[in-house]
């Protein structure tokens, strides 16, 4: 297990005040919050930060952590010294917040002993707090599934690996890996949820099992973009295709189609193919946005052709709107 330098993670000095810690935490939390951040490794950084703050904001845990001394280096192989926390009494049972199950082995070895069964998750959310009863339904669980845009046209199957809790004769709970084949129906849109009834946490007593929700995300596509159930494609076209009109082959997630480009189309023109977006009861539309691409002038024939064009279009001022003389 590796030593974690919580002060370094939070970017504060070892003698930082509680106010300093809170400020540093908030600032970094906004930067790395997975819902907000596009920083690489945001999720890992955010977890690490939550763990560091969890320890340093709690005076008892902080004193205990400081007790390890300053000779440890971040990522150094670590084993807690025998009896390292003798004489400390942790007034709070278990973790005070955050998602404890996400914390590192390092944290676990220092502060986790005996607290494994504590579940603080539901208690830490604002507005949370189901009263404990003998027959409580199990928590709902979440997992993410990545699919490709094409899958939303055809439907797809994904195998999901889950840890399923099991109760034995003595009432002990253990977990077992369980794989589920999930059929993702066509017409699915990004950020939708699929509910698998009864695949969440075990209920207490007679309480029924929670549900499992799969959050569907689309892998970024190299050339399509999705807005709600509409799909957009930037289509490169030659200048003569827009000027004279043409029928060109266009890829769509549902297969190649022939598209008629009306003569006199401008770059940026949007052509709509009704109902060719993500399928459904009200299917989305497929939009083609024209982008004019000129052939390169790499040889003398091409260059002389461009010179002819310049001659032909002498009065054409592409910068007319910019208010500069030709």
């Amino acid at each position, binding site marked *: 297990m590796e030593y974690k330098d919580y002060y370094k993670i939070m970017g504060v000095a070892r003698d930082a005040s509680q106010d300093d810690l809170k400020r540093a935490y*908030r600032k970094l*939390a*906004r930067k790395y*919050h997975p*819902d*907000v951040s596009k920083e690489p490794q945001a999720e890992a950084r*955010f977890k690490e930060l939550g763990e560091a703050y969890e320890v340093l904001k709690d005076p008892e845990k902080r004193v205990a952590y400081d007790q390890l001394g300053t000779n440890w280096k971040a990522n150094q192989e670590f084993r807690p010294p025998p009896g390292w926390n003798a004489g400390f009494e942790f007034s709070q049972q278990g973790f005070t917040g955050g998602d404890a*199950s996400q914390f590192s082995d390092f944290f676990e070895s220092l502060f986790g002993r005996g607290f494994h069964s504590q579940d603080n*998750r539901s208690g*830490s*959310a*604002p*507005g*949370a707090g*189901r009263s404990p009863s003998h027959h409580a*339904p199990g928590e*709902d*669980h*979440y*997992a993410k*599934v*990545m699919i490709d845009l094409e899958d939303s046209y055809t439907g*797809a*199957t*994904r*195998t*999901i*690996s889950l840890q399923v809790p099991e109760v034995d004769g003595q009432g002990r709970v253990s977990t077992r890996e*369980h*794989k*589920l*084949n*999930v*059929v*993702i*129906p066509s*017409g*699915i*849109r990004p*950020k*939708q*949820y*699929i*509910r*698998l*009834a009864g*695949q969440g946490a075990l209920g207490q007593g007679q309480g029924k099992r929670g*549900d499992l*929700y799969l*959050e569907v995300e689309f892998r*970024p596509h*190299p*050339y*399509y*973009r999705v*807005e709600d159930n509409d799909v*957009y494609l*930037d289509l490169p076209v030659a200048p003569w295709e827009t000027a004279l009109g043409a029928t060109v082959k266009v890829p769509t997630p549902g297969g190649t189609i022939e598209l008629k480009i009306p003569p006199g189309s401008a770059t940026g023109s949007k052509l709509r193919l009704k109902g060719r977006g993500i399928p*459904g*009861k009200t299917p989305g539309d497929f939009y083609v946005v024209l982008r004019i691409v000129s052939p390169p002038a790499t040889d003398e024939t091409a260059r002389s052709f461009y010179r002819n064009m310049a001659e032909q279009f002498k009065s054409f001022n592409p910068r007319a709107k910019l208010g500069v003389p030709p």
Partner: protein
Amino acid sequence: MMEENRGPDIRPGRLPEAQAELSAIVIDEQNALTLSELSRACAVQTGYIIELVDEGLLTPEAAEEHEPQRWRFTGTQMRRARVALRLQHDLGVNLAGVALALQLLDEVEMLRTRLDTERG
């Protein structure tokens, strides 16, 4: 705790037992969640979800009805509720701040996808 096993790489021989029959339901307009279902899915009390609706942060189907029991929430709304919860919990933002953050995040995301495809 859970991880996705990418790709349609399904080898029945490795599965420990026969596949359970799963009723997979997409939480869309036809299968939207009720107020109590959404509250349960977010592990919050219904009052919290009502606050989110009052703040204009969530827009349920049938929002014009003043009877919260008739509201229905699609997956998009469910996701917003979950992000709101996390932002409130992790960043200490109040509801108005969360509403603003969500609106800006939507805009950023739309602009970012446009940028990506235009560059590509």
